[in-house]
């Protein structure tokens, strides 16, 4: 996030797009609701009627994967009415003439045709954005999990620069990260092209710095593969060994049958995890790991806040921390990684860190600090790009054009399917389905289907239905609801016995290689009528 979570409560306008934050990020949604209670305008743009829409001034129900057309249309209207922040654009952006020209291709009438939002509604949203002094944009995987995910993000950045909403509190561009510590994992260099704190592996100065600090030579300066490439290369021998820590790959990657084929092709597949899951079935070696309540360390959340986590429970016999397993593996391979504890590893990282250099365990004993925090005296940074400054100097507008999802409904597969997460379960539910309470609250997967579509197919809530794509099929219970628009179905990937990723499309954004989990085409058929009416469905499915 460019800004901080708590700043949201003071926002004048919050523009939420592609984010079911009430279920995916309930703490963030708390601050959004606080802002609404204080009088803020809340615009929720989502193909589904998520719970947050109950709090929204406007719910804009766009068609799946039409974000670029919608936002470009809004910018067109903002320029047309003189609502752009011309001072910010002039002083803090490189190519303002370009963006004015590019969005001319998206008059609201054309944008409306693509995104399905009525022209008057688009004009009203543009007016609200353009005439409010300051607005925060929040987005999640509904923006990034598309083949055009990178361009979706760039389009939102364009919008915030046009409105001058960067470099000030309660504004900014705020991606809500997909897991509690995905920010921390990226910060620590769990990416193919950077060391910790985003120091590039192909920068000779960085290599020299790390070699000197670690007392080694010959560190590779070649960026590695991103995960989809890693897996794809298993099929042609390019990837022989995969070491997987706490990722239920089979259930989280799209097109499950293909993922299994890739994992089976590996010469050696090692998995570190806390419970058996779909992925451990394909592992040659399984290392039992510590769980989060058993491990020491830090989590870094979506607002860049580094927080201490502590072991509160005694781990089961035979389990070890991830770092200990790596240390022992290193020993057996003749490499002493010199890992002795989570704290020692953190300190070792901090010595060569940049934005984390001022964050020590002692400083975050009681409360976390937000990076950049480059010195021990520094208080951390609540929002970035102060006074409209950017890493490259001035902000660069990017040209983005709408493209449809890689797979759209047709005569054979007439429904669009989008996938996501539910409040009651976390990710592949490796942990939450081992919780009796949560499993009782939400014990089985559902497929959302609009009442018009359900009526046409003779489907009632509680009926068992088959959802089939070109890649596979799942059988699950139908939930007839207006949460999804006509023609759109929705499910999650929490349940291995009916996992959405059996049928999702393995088409990827070319830059990030993020899969298009949010859009594919399916057909639906009723398998079995409900034996008893599902009166509790609404309570179960909606927080």
């Amino acid at each position, binding site marked *: 996030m460019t800004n901080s979570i708590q700043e949201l409560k003071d926002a004048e306008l919050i523009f939420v797009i592609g984010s079911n934050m009430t279920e995916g990020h309930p703490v963030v949604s708390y601050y959004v609701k606080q802002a609404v209670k204080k009088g803020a305008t809340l615009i929720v743009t989502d193909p589904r009627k998520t719970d947050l829409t109950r709090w929204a001034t406007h719910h804009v129900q766009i068609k799946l994967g039409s974000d670029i057309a919608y936002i470009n249309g809004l910018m067109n209207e903002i320029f047309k009415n003189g609502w752009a922040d011309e001072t910010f654009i002039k002083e803090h952006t490189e190519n303002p003439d370009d963006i004015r020209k590019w969005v001319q291709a998206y008059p609201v009438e054309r944008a409306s045709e693509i995104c399905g939002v009525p022209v008057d509604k688009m004009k009203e949203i543009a007016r609200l954005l353009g005439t409010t002094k300051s607005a925060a944009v929040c987005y999640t995987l509904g923006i990034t999990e598309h083949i055009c995910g990178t361009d979706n993000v760039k389009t939102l950045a364009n919008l915030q620069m046009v409105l001058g909403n960067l470099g000030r509190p309660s504004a900014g561009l705020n991606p809500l990260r997909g897991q509690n510590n995905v920010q921390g994992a990226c910060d620590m260099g769990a990416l193919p092209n950077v060391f910790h704190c985003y120091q590039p592996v192909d920068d000779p100065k960085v290599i020299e710095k790390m070699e000197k600090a670690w007392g080694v030579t010959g560190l590779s300066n070649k960026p590695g593969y991103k995960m989809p490439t890693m897996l794809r290369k298993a099929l042609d021998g390019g990837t022989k060994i995969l070491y997987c820590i706490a990722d239920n790959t089979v259930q989280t990657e799209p097109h499950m049958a293909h993922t299994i084929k890739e994992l089976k092709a590996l010469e050696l597949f090692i998995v570190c995890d806390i419970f058996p899951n779909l992925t451990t079935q394909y592992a040659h070696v399984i290392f039992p790991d510590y769980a989060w309540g058993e491990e020491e360390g830090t989590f870094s959340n979506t607002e860049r806040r580094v927080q201490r986590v502590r072991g509160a429970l005694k781990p089961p016999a035979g389990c070890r921390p991830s770092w200990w397993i790596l240390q022992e593996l290193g020993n057996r391979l003749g490499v002493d990684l010199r890992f002795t504890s989570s704290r020692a590893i953190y300190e070792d990282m901090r010595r060569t860190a940049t934005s984390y250099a001022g964050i020590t365990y002692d400083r975050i004993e009681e409360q976390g600090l937000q990076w*950049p925090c480059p010195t*021990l005296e*520094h208080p951390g940074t609540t929002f970035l790009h*102060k006074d409209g400054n950017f890493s490259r100097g001035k902000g660069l507008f990017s040209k983005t054009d709408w493209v449809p999802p890689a797979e759209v409904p047709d005569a054979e597969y007439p429904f669009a399917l989008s996938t996501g997460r539910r409040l009651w379960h976390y990710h592949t539910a490796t942990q939450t389905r081992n919780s009796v309470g949560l499993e009782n609250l939400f014990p089985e997967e559902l497929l959302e289907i609009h009442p018009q579509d359900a009526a046409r197919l003779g489907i009632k809530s509680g009926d068992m239905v088959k959802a089939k794509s070109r890649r596979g099929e799942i059988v699950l219970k139908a939930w007839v609801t207006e949460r999804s628009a006509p023609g759109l179905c929705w499910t999650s990937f929490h349940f291995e016995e009916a996992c959405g990723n059996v049928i999702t499309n393995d088409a990827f954004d070319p830059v990030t290689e993020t899969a298009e989990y949010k859009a594919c085409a399916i057909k639906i058929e009723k398998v079995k009528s409900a034996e008893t009416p599902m009166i509790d469905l609404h309570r179960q499915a909606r927080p």
Partner: protein
Amino acid sequence: MKESMDINSILNAAIKREEEAYKFYKDVAERMDNKAVREAFQQFAEDELGHKDFLKNCLKDPSLLKNLPVPKDYKVAEATEAPLLSVDMKPADAMALAMKKEQEAAEFYLKLAKTAVNSQYQEAFRGLANMELDHKTRIEALFVGIGYPEVF
């Protein structure tokens, strides 16, 4: 009267330093390729002119120096390596260079304050150091906002 004259010579020397700093930033700005970096250096040059004006006012009323608040010093410049001056500098490097220069200026005045022969001179040098520290802190805040980007 003599003390006042000596304070004046301290201030005049400081004014000369600001003029030199102004010239440095202005010359550097003219040679920069990146427009934003050019503008950043132009702004730093303007800031030095502002300091010069302030010091001129101090000549009339030396007590102004005493009223300068002591800024928070997060020591970001101290923890940052000085980048080499080049025509294709990145904005973060331009800011790093400027904050290093402000750090040096502040240290210069603090050193003089330590060796000053009387409390009046000490106060004057501390005031000058605070002026430079304040500038350093402001540039550091800009640097921190852009110097540590996430990249993929």
